[in-house]
């Protein structure tokens, strides 16, 4: 169960999630400070620790469009946020999967800021309205990376396997 702490519309770009002027900051340990920097109020609440891990950003279609900057995924992951969106842009979705940021594709979801959502593999249930919305499972290609614990362990296993086979 998590609370919707930020509600956004369609086509939220990575320039909004993580403005370009902070791109010289790259390490996942340092990027969270600039999450939603141009939404100063929300950024302030994140930095002040007022937002619990597991809280939800609710968005419309095409969340994370634009730049491939991985900071847009790592900065949200740093706060343990969950993104529930009607759909995601390709590179952002892949970056989220690779880094282990929780993302949920829910094409019909309806909720407002403050609502409590219960998320399972098959549905998002809005506890505040009582409505349930089906979840679109991630493609198997992405689920395999999540099951491995992210792309780094996934790639590490492949690397070891291939070097062993080459020996």
């Amino acid at each position, binding site marked *: 169960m998590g609370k919707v702490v930020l509600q956004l519309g*369609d*086509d939220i*770009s990575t*320039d*909004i999630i993580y*403005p*370009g*002027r902070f*791109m*010289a*900051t*790259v*390490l996942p340990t340092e990027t969270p400070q600039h999450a939603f920097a*141009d939404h100063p109020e929300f950024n302030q609440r994140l930095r002040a620790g007022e937002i619990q891990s597991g809280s939800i950003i609710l968005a419309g*279609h*095409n969340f994370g*469009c*634009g*730049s*491939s*900057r*991985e900071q847009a*995924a790592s900065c949200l992951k740093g706060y343990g946020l969950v993104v529930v969106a009607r*759909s995601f*842009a*390709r*590179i952002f979705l*892949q*970056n989220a999967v*690779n*880094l282990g940021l929780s993302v949920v594709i829910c094409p019909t979801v309806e909720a407002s800021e403050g609502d409590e959502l219960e998320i399972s593999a098959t549905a998002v249930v809005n506890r505040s309205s009582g409505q349930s919305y089906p979840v679109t499972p991630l*493609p*198997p*290609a*992405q689920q*395999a*990376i999540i099951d491995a614990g*992210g*792309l*780094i362990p*996934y*790639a*590490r296993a*492949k*690397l*070891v396997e*291939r*070097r062993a086979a080459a020996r």
Partner: protein
Amino acid sequence: MGFTLVEKILGRATGQRDVRAGDVVEPRVSMAMSHENAALVLNQFQEIFTGTGLEPRVWDRERIAIIFDHRVPAESSKTATNQKKVREFVAAQGITRFHDIRGDEGGICHQILPENGYVRPAWVVVGTDSHTTSHGALGAFSFGIGATEMAAVWALGRALNVTVPGTIKVVVEGELRPGVAPKDLILHLIGRLTAQGANFKVIEFHGETIRRMSTSGRLTLCNMTVEAGATSGIVPPDEETLRYLREEAGVSEIPEDTLLSPDADAHYQEELAVDASTLEPQVACPHSVDNVKPVSAVAGTRVHQIVIGSCTNGRLDDLEAAAAILRGRKVAAGTRMLVFPASFRVYMAALERGYVGDLLRAGAVVMNPGCGPCLGVHQGALGDGEVALATTNRNFKGRMGNPKSEVYLCSPAVAAASALTGAITDPREVN
């Protein structure tokens, strides 16, 4: 049933005969490009090797290209330190295709790749930049990835778990009218498709207009396909592709079997027709790239800063179009004009042909090649309430560094004509 161009390329790169949209594949990568964010890639790359007992070595030092372009010369000590780390990594690994901050070889990654022959037809190209879609202009399957994904490519030489994209076929017929450019064509198409209309798909370009178009124009088209959400854009290689590779990219060997075409009975998820002869110059209005209007609808909008350049429209023909309009004239008082060529090779050619002089005498500031102003990270920031008109590729809120400003996108001709008047202007009205 036949194959689309991308299905054929991925078939070659995996050694599988029957690769179809929706399949999951691990294609061999022919070129892996990064810019300053190589600083993050190398961090993740070292992580992959942690605990394996293996020495961190890139899979192929000749298939990695690293180009500094986002903040050049460095705007802060932080950037300079990142660049230093990358330089040390490049030296330690012996990476051969490295373009440092230099007037003889530097530039924007999406120009450096084609002009140096780092992209070939039928190749799989990945880049840690969303505009890596550009290189489909040369018949490659070329797409943007994140830094961690690139780290896996550096380690393994393959792109992991790629879902083969479906394809939208776009057929463009008819001649672009004078004053109308490839940029207008792609803006029009993005307006029709919307910012998410091509999500997870490839846009394959066909038709007489494309066949007659230069590689520079094709690069502009493919560059911006990502603004409709596309995984990539692609143009089947033809005579023009061969001409570009031989004459402009110095490539002598182009194997016949890399000049692939899609099959006539390939399956397309969507087909679109565009009549180029009816287009007028287009403008993408704040704050989304799909908010596209004909120039007549926004003509007269006051503009404080004109920007001509970037990976989208910073090539020689773009500067030529701008110089032709501004030669012997002046940028309007109260309007600043910034020009940043796509590479130093382009800069030099524009210098030799007199375009740089034309632009300077008109009042433009000609800057070094780089990405800085386009994404608001280095020079050319906007003041509160100011309006920019740019030949770049994105106009998201805050894109040029100030969420209290507005950005409109257009072709080099519209930008140059508007520089003369200080307001958005149809270039056909100033000649």
